[in-house]
């Protein structure tokens, strides 16, 4: 039976044709994935189905009936539920309060909290989604918060569940849990639409996959008939090379090192214990580990946002006494962040301002404190083209670019700054295949230019493919140091889970 069908949907935004005659048909009880690069129109299509956007033309059929979905209330009535990328939960409220919000069980006119808790308990048992109904949402991990969101839409009777990039915020373990949940829901006869650009996950969970590119459906394939490679090709429109050719560069001097670094995080817990390592010029040092095992503390200590309680940080041979982003950058550090919106860009600033930020006080961008707009424009135009930012218009605000292009703006800035050491913290997080490929290319180029690169990543394949040396972080400690050629993903995986240790290899 057909659960949902869209026919000839067209949605125009100023300057962009987001959905160009899109038709899809989704069967009841299947997990249907929609993949595509950032800006391919997947989210737009789902927002149309959920009533958040009105299409310029086209029809929507829900369980065989033609429906006119004007807003999300209509969608909920038609048993369509959506879990957004950004959760819409109230942190101070309990799980129960969040789930029943807007449709509370009442005793007369009073909110019947006891009954609400019971209802939530029943619901969580029915679908096998374990949860503590009286816990406050602010105390929950992101994965559990997502579970609350799913329960919330299930309680409203959703039969069709739309999940917009649900794994973007999850750790690998949480993703596993989510997939178990989705399979359980499928057993219960729910229809799931799974939007993603992570092909590995799609291949794991989906029954059928639709590929979108530039607002059009490129094709719908059954999972058994396809491969990651084929999907990537359909998505980008050409062959994607995510395997990086091994480049050997002569190792040079130490450009960055930490010794005995111990850091307390903002919650007052020791997040990094006695960590020491060096990064040489011409090498990429990969830091593998499950999220929350000290990566954030390490980055924040290097930026000076967390003051180490012990240990030293060196740029080259110089010990950094006063660590601030400014001091680190003037000593030759560039930094690619995973948190583009908060750390990487001043969102209301134009692309041109973001590209020169950090070097704006240098000649030729300014002279005696006065900005030289002509020099800035020339430089920015050149850089935006070099880094293939689309559209290559420096006068557009950073917030208006897609995620991949925002990352390219950051790359354009960080690569053009004078530096000897690059701190790349999850540089491909949330990026589609095309942009990921681009980031890999840049990292390898950095190595060729004899810069030292510290690559922190949660994606094991990324670490294995790019690094010359791998350090594994577990519980804030380095539990192993291995060469990618002498190890396997399994071995690193065991170290990441704290089940194996390996001594440092001799330099």
């Amino acid at each position, binding site marked *: 039976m057909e659960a949902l069908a869209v026919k000839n949907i067209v949605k125009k935004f100023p300057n962009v044709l987001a959905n160009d005659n899109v038709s899809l048909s989704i069967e009841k009880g299947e997990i249907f994935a929609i993949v595509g690069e950032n800006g391919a129109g997947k989210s737009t299509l789902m927002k149309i189905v959920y009533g958040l956007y009105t299409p310029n033309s086209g029809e929507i059929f829900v369980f065989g009936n033609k429906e006119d979905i004007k807003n999300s209330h209509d969608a909920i009535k038609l048993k369509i539920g959506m879990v957004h990328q950004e959760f819409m939960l109230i942190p101070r409220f309990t799980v129960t309060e969040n789930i029943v919000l807007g449709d509370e069980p009442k005793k007369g006119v009073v909110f019947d909290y006891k009954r609400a808790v019971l209802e939530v308990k029943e619901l969580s048992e029915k679908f096998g989604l374990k949860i503590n109904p009286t816990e406050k949402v602010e105390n929950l991990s992101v994965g559990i918060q997502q579970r609350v969101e799913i329960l919330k839409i299930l309680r409203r009777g959703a039969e069709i569940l739309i999940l917009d990039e649900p794994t973007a915020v999850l750790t690998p373990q949480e993703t596993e849990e989510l997939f178990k949940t989705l399979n359980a829901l499928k057993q219960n006869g729910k229809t799931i639409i799974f939007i993603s650009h992570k092909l590995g996950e799609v291949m794991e969970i989906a029954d059928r996959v639709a590929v979108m590119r530039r607002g059009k459906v490129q094709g719908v394939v059954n999972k058994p008939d396809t491969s990651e490679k084929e999907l990537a090709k359909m998505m980008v429109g050409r062959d994607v090379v995510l395997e990086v050719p091994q480049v050997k560069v002569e190792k040079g001097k130490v450009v960055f090192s930490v010794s005995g670094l111990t850091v307390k995080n903002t919650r007052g817990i020791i997040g990094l214990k006695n960590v020491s390592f060096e990064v040489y010029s011409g090498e990429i040092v990969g830091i593998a580990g499950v999220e929350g095992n000290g990566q954030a503390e390490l980055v924040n200590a290097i930026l000076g946002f967390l003051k180490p309680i012990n240990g030293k940080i060196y740029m080259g041979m110089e010990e950094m006494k006063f660590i601030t982003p400014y001091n680190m950058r003037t000593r030759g550090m560039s930094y690619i962040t995973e948190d583009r919106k908060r750390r990487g860009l001043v969102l209301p600033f134009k692309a041109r301002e973001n590209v020169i930020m950090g070097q704006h006080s240098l000649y030729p961008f300014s002279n005696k404190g*006065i900005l030289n707009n002509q020099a800035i424009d020339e430089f920015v135009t050149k850089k935006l083209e070099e880094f293939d930012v689309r559209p290559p218009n420096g006068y557009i605000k950073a917030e208006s670019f897609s995620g991949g292009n925002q990352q390219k703006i950051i790359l354009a800035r960080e690569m053009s700054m004078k530096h000897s050491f690059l701190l790349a913290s999850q540089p491909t997080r949330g990026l589609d295949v095309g942009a990921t490929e681009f980031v890999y290319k840049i990292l390898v180029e950095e190595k060729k230019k004899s810069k030292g690169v510290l690559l922190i990543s949660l994606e094991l394949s990324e670490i294995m493919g790019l690094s010359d040396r791998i350090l594994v972080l577990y519980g804030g400690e380095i539990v192993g140091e291995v060469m990618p050629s002498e190890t396997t993903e399994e071995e690193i995986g065991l170290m990441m889970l704290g089940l194996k240790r390996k001594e440092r290899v001799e330099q």
Partner: protein
Amino acid sequence: MKELFYRLFVERKEKYWWMNLLVPVTSIVIALIVGAIFIWSTGRDPFLAYKLLFNASGLVPGPYWKSSFTEMLLSSSLFIATGLAFAIAARSGLFSIGAEGQFTVGAITAAYFGYAKPFAALPTIIHLTIILLMVMLAGGLWGFVAGYLRAKKGINEVIVTIMLNWIAFHLIEGWLVTGPMAADVSTGVISGTPSVSPTARLPIILHNTRLNIGILIMIAVIIIIWFLLYKTTFGFEIRAMGHTAVWGMEASRVQGININKRIMQVMLISGAIAALGGSFITLGINFHYPPVADSGYGFDGIAVALIGQNEPFGILFSGILIGALRTGATAVQIAHIPKTFPSIIEGLIVAFIALQELIRYLLFKLVKTKRTAQTEGGLTQ
């Protein structure tokens, strides 16, 4: 003309840049309409009230225009000063409500250096220069304290500036004016501080009026602040800070901007500008520091900055607007309306400015439907 407008205000190269002008103007018009409803509901004539208000405000030519116009500019220069002081702090993400205290500090400093013996004999130009420099130094220091505490100790600038306002108030009116700086009462001429020497008075620029060079100085300051904001690396950095002042936004810091240094500098500048306004009231209007000062300019500055959208040239116009409303205030009494009525309008304007996102949205909708109607009309032809 459009080109000039564009370059002066906007510098934004945005598609709908004129929205930034249209939104405040719409807010003002709506506020006037709502104000009219208020008057009408009390059974008085709103048209008469507005006629009286604007005739006396100095905005439209009429009887006694010269005097009302110059009076309007005179008070506008004070509002512009406190408005700019708030705006520059706001642009860097600081919520400084210390203009009130800095304003009075400026006023008392001007009074002291205005009457103090060793300076009183100097030629006007030198005397005035010294006074204004000392005023900016004192006010700047008053602002710097808040900036320093924020930058070095992380103490919220809102709290510190409020407390500094009270410190300034009690220090000046509770002690200085009645104590060490009090005029010799036995002469029986004035109370408060002694009068400033004639060489310390701001030169009059229009004969037979009180209009002095204060407004010209303020216009120069506006231009300087505009240049600072949009043309220098300093302004680039503080705008970046302002855009990332929301909790959790770290982009400007991560990109290597020395935020703590900039916070202190911005507060220094902010305090200096507010104090400059305070000196104008002493050197151009009262000619001494009265025992009880007519205050409130510092807080009105917040409204001025809001209406002017924290843009230097926007503040020029909003300062003039508020100055005009205050100048025309007394005239509405002829229509049996209390002279505080213009303050209601002021409040309404601020309220509608606060709703600017809604107004912006409605205006956009209006523009869009018009555009689509036009294109569709074009298709049928």
